[in-house]
Structure formats: structure tokens, C-alpha cells
């Protein structure tokens, strides 16, 4: 028994060191993660950080250009653009995480179930998934939003509903691979229950591509929210959203084209950060890509 205790104990610092090494090696991940954390902080502290109210109008100060006083100028109703940009952040993050969350809650269990059970249940459900994947995603999301009722939460429930079949198919494929692995057979041989096998063996081993896909989906959800809010199907005025800001800016593109740059950049950078993070996770999790 003492032999085990004699093993060299890994020094406490090794984890910090590993993180530092990872940060040096994967600058992209560090930059995008920092950006997203910053965005999260901005979202949480939006009420404190925003210099002005995002919805108070001032008809004497319409469409002011970016300057020293209101940094990013004012919109067509005299509202402070920077404050609206800051208040748009929590809406965007809420939208992304809600849509992806709904996709996970619906898609992952279904994928696990049909992958594990197989048979006619799998046949029928897989055809249904194929059918759902044949719909142009935004068009289906718009139709579902229209049916459920216009608004940010319903819009993102709809986007999540569009994500679910993608995740279900991915999880199903992963489950099929793991299900027939030797160690699962062994576990079954030792009398492990189905739920034990799913929770202890299939989920941990099937989850890696799902993590990557989910991170990339955050970017897709963000862009979908921007599109839907641009079409006035998402965030409802006077609440602030980046897509909605672009829609207003477009009405005044001839007299104040600078209105469209800040919200567009915010969407682009956030989507880039989610995508970059997803790619970095993919590389980090993929054993064949370790030695690059």
C-alpha cells in the first residue's frame, strides 16, 4: 500500500504552468476567450457601464457623428449609440446561449437515445431529422417564430429548434461509434445497466465533437439573432440589439453612414471569437492534431 504513496506527487504549480504553456501556444484561443469574458462583464455591468440610458430620446441631438462627447454619436431618435451598443451585448449573449441551450436539451438526448436503441425507432427518427435538416434554417426559424409569436425569446427558441436535429444527428453518430467499442462490451459483460453505460461511457466519449459544434453554434445563433432582430422578428424596440441598430442605421444610410459601423463590428467580432474558440477547442481535443 505504501508503494502508491511513494509515487512522486505532481507539484501544485503544474496546472498553472500547463495553462501558461497553453496560453503561449494558442494565442488565438486566449484572445477570443478574453474578448468573450470582456463581453460577459460588459453584459453584466451594462447598467453601470453605459454612460447614458439606452432608450431615452433627445430630439435636439439626432444622428450626431462619433465625437468627444457622445463617443459613438447618437441615433435617429437621439439615443446614445455607445449605450445602446453596451445594452445590446446582454441581449446577444442571452440569445446565443438560449438558442444553443434549447438545441442541446432537445438534440442531445434524442441523439443518444436513437443511437443507443437503434432499430426502427432510429430509422424513423433519423428520417424525421433528415426532413428537418432539409429546411433552410433561418426560414424555418422565422416560420416558427411567426407561429409562436414575435419576440427575442421565441425567436431563439425557434433557432434552438433548428439546432436540435443537427446535434441529434452528431450525437447519434458518435453514440454508434462508442456503443460498439470493446470497453462498452466489457462493461456490459460485467453487468452494467443501460443508464450506467450511457452516462459513464457513452456521454463522456461522445461529447467532444459536441463541445466543438456547440461553440461554433454560438456564433451561428448570434448571427441568427442579429438577422432576426434586423427583420424586427427578434429583440423588440425600444430594447437595444445590434441587429436592430443596423436596421435603423440602414434607414439613414445616405445621411449618416457611420451609424452602421459599430453594431456591425460588434456582431462580427463576437462571432469571430466564438468561431475561433471552437476551432481551438477542436485542435485541443483532437489527438491527431496535438503535434502541430
Amino acid at each position: 500500500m505504501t508503494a502508491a504513496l511513494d509515487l512522486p506527487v505532481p507539484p501544485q504549480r503544474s496546472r498553472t504552468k500547463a495553462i501558461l504553456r497553453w496560453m503561449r501556444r494558442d494565442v488565438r484561443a486566449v484572445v477570443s476567450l478574453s474578448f468573450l469574458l470582456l463581453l460577459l462583464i460588459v453584459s453584466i455591468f451594462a447598467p453601470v457601464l453605459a454612460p447614458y440610458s439606452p432608450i431615452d430620446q433627445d430630439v435636439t441631438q439626432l444622428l450626431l457623428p462619433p465625437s468627444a462627447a457622445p463617443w459613438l454619436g447618437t441615433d435617429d431618435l437621439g439615443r446614445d449609440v455607445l449605450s445602446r451598443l453596451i445594452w445590446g451585448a446582454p441581449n446577444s449573449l442571452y440569445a446565443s446561449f438560449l438558442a444553443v441551450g434549447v438545441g442541446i436539451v432537445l438534440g442531445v438526448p434524442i441523439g443518444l437515445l436513437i443511437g443507443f436503441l437503434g432499430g426502427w425507432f432510429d430509422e424513423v427518427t433519423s428520417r424525421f431529422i433528415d426532413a428537418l435538416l432539409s429546411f433552410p434554417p433561418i426560414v424555418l426559424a422565422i416560420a416558427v417564430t411567426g407561429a409562436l409569436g414575435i419576440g427575442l425569446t421565441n425567436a431563439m427558441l425557434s433557432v434552438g429548434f433548428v439546432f436540435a436535429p443537427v446535434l441529434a444527428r452528431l450525437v447519434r453518430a458518435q453514440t454508434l461509434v462508442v456503443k460498439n467499442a470493446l470497453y462498452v462490451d466489457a462493461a456490459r459483460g460485467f453487468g452494467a445497466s443501460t443508464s450506467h453505460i450511457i452516462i459513464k461511457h457513452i456521454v463522456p466519449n461522445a461529447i467532444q465533437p459536441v463541445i466543438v459544434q456547440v461553440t461554433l453554434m454560438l456564433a451561428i445563433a448570434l448571427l441568427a439573432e442579429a438577422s432576426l432582430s434586423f427583420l424586427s422578428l427578434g429583440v423588440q424596440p425600444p430594447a437595444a440589439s445590434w441587429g436592430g441598430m443596423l436596421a435603423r442605421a440602414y434607414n439613414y444610410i445616405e445621411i449618416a453612414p457611420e451609424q452602421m459601423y459599430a453594431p456591425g463590428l460588434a456582431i462580427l467580432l463576437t462571432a469571430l471569437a466564438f468561431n475561433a474558440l471552437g476551432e481551438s477547442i477542436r485542435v485541443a481535443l483532437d489527438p491527431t492534431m496535438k503535434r502541430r
Partner: protein
Amino acid sequence: MGKILRLVGRRLWQLLPIIVFATFVVFSLLQLVPGDPAVVLAGDYASEQRIAEIRQLYGLDQPFLVQYGVWLLHALEGNLGRSLLTSESVSQLILYRLPNTLLIAVYALVIAGVVGVALGVAAATRVGTRLDAFITGLASLGVALPSFWLAMILVATLSLGLHWFPTTGAAPLLTDPWGAIMHATLPAVALAVGVIAELARQVRSALIEVLNSQYIRTLRAKGLSSGAVLWKHGLRNISVTLLTLLGLQVNRLFSGAVVIEAVFAIPGVGSLVANSALNKDFPVVQGVVLVLVVIVILINLLVDVLSALLDPRAAEA
């Protein structure tokens, strides 16, 4: 020829459950609306009598599956109901607007096919160089770029600034082809960028894999020029992958068209579905979604058949 017909028949048979499920989803959209479908379909301020009429007309007093059957039979006859807003026939509305959407989608697909494949090939044949890094970076940017924002920038610079292109609207392709192309160029470019990025990435990785394979190494070893290796063997081997990729982009193009049509005020089915959803005009929403999903499924069929022609191995699957 007989072989191809058999293949089409088999694929259609396989697609049948997908078509049935897809139409079922479209039909079920109405069931998601809170409240009585008959009241919803009758529109605002409808009389009790009108609601009862609608209920009978659509068979809404029947069991759910019978309702679906009635709806599907009507749809097969081309009867998609009437708009709640304008009481125009939904199929007429769609037929009138579909060409505008198809024009920008096909135009975008052509642009994206040419540019995306060229970028992918350029990157794959120069892996690890600055050009490869540049193209890969560009593709990452393209995937994250909101297409409607790009569209706005294009309008601000190229049409309002330089007056190269008209700002909004569409022209009929048959009577005014030049006008139609000019109107469709900026929307098509905005739509194409995301597809270009996706194609460049996928073509790059598919081609890298082929070029690293054993038989390509053998061809190189026996002294075949790199141009011949690329064109005769590399690209030929990814042609089926490429076709599948292009087919998959149709979904993305229709999705993008919704927002792009809004930016350019194009009277297509994309702006139609968005406006109808806003105005709770459900027969129109259902009609557009149905038509688009059927187009997507038929394009999948076409891709399958063309793949089988390009690669006999694909026909076996």
C-alpha cells in the same frame, strides 16, 4: 439511361418519407400558434360565421391527421390557400416572387463556386505558406461576417458612393436582362461571401487530404507534373465532394436571401416569408416554407444523381 432512371426511382423512394415528414412539419406550424387555428386563419375581426366557414373549408373540425391529408391534397393541386392580408392566392404570390429569389441565389452560387473553389485550391496547393494563411484567415472572417451588414456597406460604397449599381429593387430577367443582372449583383455578392468562405475551407481540406494520399505520391514519384496531378487526379477526386458541398449551400443561400432581400427591397420569397411572419399571415408562411423545402429536397436528388454519374461507386450506396 435505364440505370439512371432506376437510380432516380430508388432515390425518390428513399426521399418519400423525408418529403412526408417535411410537409408534416410545414402543416404542423399552424398548430404551434396559440389558440384555435380556425380563428387564426380567419384573420382579425372575422365574424363567427366566417370562422365556422374556415373551419369547414380546411377541415379543422376533423381529426389532426385528416386535416393534414386535406391540406396535403390541396397543396398537391397547387392550392396553398389565400393570404390573410391581401386574400391573393398564395401559390400566385409565390410564383410571382420566386424568380427574383432564384436569380440572386443562382447568381451567388455561381460567384461562390468559382471564387470559393479557386481560393480553396490555391490554399491547398500552397499549404503552410503566407497565401494559405491569408486565405484561411479570409475564410474565417467570411464565416463570421453578417451578410446583411456587408450588404449595407456595399450599398453605401458601390451604389450610393460610386453609383455603379442600383440601390434597391429588382428587374424582370426576361424583358430587362441587363437591369436584372445589375440589380442582382450586389445582393448576390453579399449572399456569396459566406458560401465562398465555407467552400474555400472545405475544398482546401478535401484537396489536402487527396494530395497527401498514396497514389498521388506515386504519380509524383513517376514524374507527373504538379499541374497534371492537380487537374487530372486531385480535382477529379474531389468532384463528388464538391458537388455535395454545392448542394448543401442551397439551404444557406435561401436562409441568407431572407435578410438580403430585406436590405435590397427585392420582392422575393425571402422578404415575403419574413413580412408574412411579422403580419401573422400563416398561409403565406406555410406556402413559402413548403416550396423552399421541396426545392431543397429536389436539389439533393439532383446532386445524388449527378454524383452517381461522376463516380460509379456513389451509385452503389
